[in-house]
């Protein structure tokens, strides 16, 4: 069992900083997913753990060993690459067994191991084929078998499923998950696909522009995004975010003179430039004339089958709501929304961090109930 500790890890290429000091503890046996948009430094971070990139400053420890100056092969990591990176001239069996061959394991022992691993990912019938004769999913399984056969201390996945079609991706996800359950090896998985991240991760590391925005369980990240970036990045459709400020008359002012009745706010937030956010699934439609309802005009509607997305305009700010009603609704028609203040997220516009509104909200919620 092996934990990975990153402390103020930085990466700099010539003049540009790609990773700005990352501090993360990955626990032993944990499945951690690093999620972020392309170019956020997530792959670089993974490659630094693998030893394929040099670390500009900071330290990376795998288990109790600081691995900064160790060669990739000495780190006990196995990696699965995006483009499989199989040796085209070797058969599946040779591909899987190559690391063992390099390590000088005797042939008989090697063959037995390869066979065992190939069985576990149902590649047994293909052992004599070349990678070129396999489908994408099979190639990815070979890549995984190649990683597994070494019995590494750490598994690293670099966007392994991005070349697979949607259906296969779901299947492979389940496979990786059950693999992890079975082996219990510490795993780090890099992806830009949030569904993949949410379903796979024990814990998520959200990165943006070389900075870790939030580390937490998928539910935590979803329910309490630590920053404006995370709020916007996690969830589909994205969270409604409206810029404005809380006035002391109990209204939130935004857009072109828009006012939303939000009397439930901690006094320390008054008059600050903030963004408030509510997830589309937490915005519900209410009948016209409901007290405190937000009045909006429908821009357009996206039908999803089971539900629909209403894109509406509230005094110059865009609000999206998930709606399961099926009444006739079209562009230009008025709609009315409400949401629970408990579902409200507030972020500072200065640094994008989450602002704590819990105390203020609790107080006023009680007030409304009374």
């Amino acid at each position, binding site marked *: 069992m092996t934990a990975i500790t990153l402390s103020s890890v930085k990466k700099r290429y010539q003049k540009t900083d790609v990773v700005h000091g990352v501090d993360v503890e990955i626990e032993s046996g944990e499945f951690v997913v690093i999620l972020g948009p392309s170019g956020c430094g997530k792959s670089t971070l993974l490659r630094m753990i*693998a030893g394929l990139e040099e670390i500009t400053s900071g330290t990376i420890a795998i288990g109790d060993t600081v691995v900064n100056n160790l060669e990739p*092969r000495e780190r006990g990591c196995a990696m699965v690459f995006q483009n499989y990176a*199989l040796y085209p*001239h070797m058969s599946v069996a040779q591909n899987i067994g190559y*690391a063992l061959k390099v390590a000088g394991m005797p042939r008989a022992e090697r063959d037995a191991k390869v066979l065992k691993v190939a069985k576990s990912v149902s590649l047994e019938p293909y052992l004599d084929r070349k990678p070129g004769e396999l489908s994408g999913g099979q190639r990815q399984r070979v890549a995984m078998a*190649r990683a597994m056969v070494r019995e590494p201390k750490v598994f690293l996945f670099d966007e392994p499923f991005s070349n697979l079609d949607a259906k296969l991706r779901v299947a492979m996800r389940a496979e990786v998950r059950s693999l992890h359950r079975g082996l219990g090896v510490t795993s780090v998985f890099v992806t830009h696909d949030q569904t993949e991240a949410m379903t796979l991760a024990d814990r998520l590391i959200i990165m943006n522009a070389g900075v870790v925005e939030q580390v937490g369980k998928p539910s935590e990240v979803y329910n309490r995004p630590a920053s404006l970036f995370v709020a916007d990045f996690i969830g589909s459709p994205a969270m409604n975010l409206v810029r404005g400020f809380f006035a002391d008359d109990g209204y939130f002012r935004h857009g072109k003179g828009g006012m939303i009745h939000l009397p439930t706010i901690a006094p320390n937030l008054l008059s600050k430039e903030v963004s408030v956010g509510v997830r589309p699934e937490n915005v519900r439609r209410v009948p016209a004339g409901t007290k405190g309802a937000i009045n909006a005009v429908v821009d357009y509607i996206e039908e999803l089958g089971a539900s629909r997305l209403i894109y509406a305009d509230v005094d110059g700010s865009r609000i999206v709501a998930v709606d399961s009603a099926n009444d006739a609704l079209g562009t230009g028609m008025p709609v009315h929304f409400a949401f629970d203040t408990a579902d409200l997220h507030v972020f500072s516009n200065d640094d994008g961090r989450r602002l704590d509104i819990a105390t203020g909200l609790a107080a006023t919620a009680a007030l409304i109930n009374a």
Partner: protein
Amino acid sequence: MIERSPIFNIVTYATMILGLLLVLTPFWIVIVAGSLSLQEVSQVPLKLWPSNHLLENLEVAWTRADLGPKMINSLIVAVGVTVGKITLAALSAFSIVFFNYRARMLCFWLIFITLMLPLEVRIVPTYSIAANALQPFQVILDTLGITWLVETVSGVRVGLEWNLLNSYTGLILPLVATATGTFLYRQFFMTIPDELVEASKMDGSGPLRFFFEVLLPLSRTNMLALATIMFVSSWNQYLWPLLITTDRANFGTVVMQLKALIPAQNGTPDWNVTMAGALIIMLPPLLVVALMQRWFVRGLISRDK
């Protein structure tokens, strides 16, 4: 371009056949002339249909030009150049593409520049080096005054000499040192995905292992293509062997011997023997191309990855 009309088809075929004739006619004339007797070959106009003296002409050419030992010489040179070139090209391209060091680009350009300086251009300095391969070191020693120093101290004059004239080494080495192969290999190595390099690093293989177990097997078609080109071009070398070989009996190559088969100004105009000799001499490269052409085309065009 896809064009389907009868006229266009005819034009296409006509062009192809014309091109084929253009290429094959000289060969035909060599074969025909090689099979004629002395009387027949002297006729005007030239006979264009083979006669039955081919075997005796071949025999005369073989003995007159001493083609047996010369064939072996040519084979040694061609194989030596081919093997040397492939080794040099693969290693230098490996270094240039996969290693990161300060003088990498400088090295690449130095090699690249030699593409623009074929042997014929630098033949005089190359000859002078071949006459004494250690001459550059001698010059360095002289300029630094070390020769003088050693001479004054010990009374012995340092004279470095390594003569490559009239040797296989001298025939082979200057032909090995050109950039074409390095360039071809570099282009191929650059198509190897980074992930493959990284995967082999993760698998624990060092650079040499990667070179022998991944790069070389992958570059097999390239290697065969390069081997074909190199074999043919070094077999056909004329100027360099002519220049460096004074001892023709031992180190002459077949292409030099072809010159010896050309009738002298006032001698018997037995062109039939000359042509028969040409037939023998062009046979090995033809065979190599015929055997390798499948790989040759693949190595230059596609990548089986």
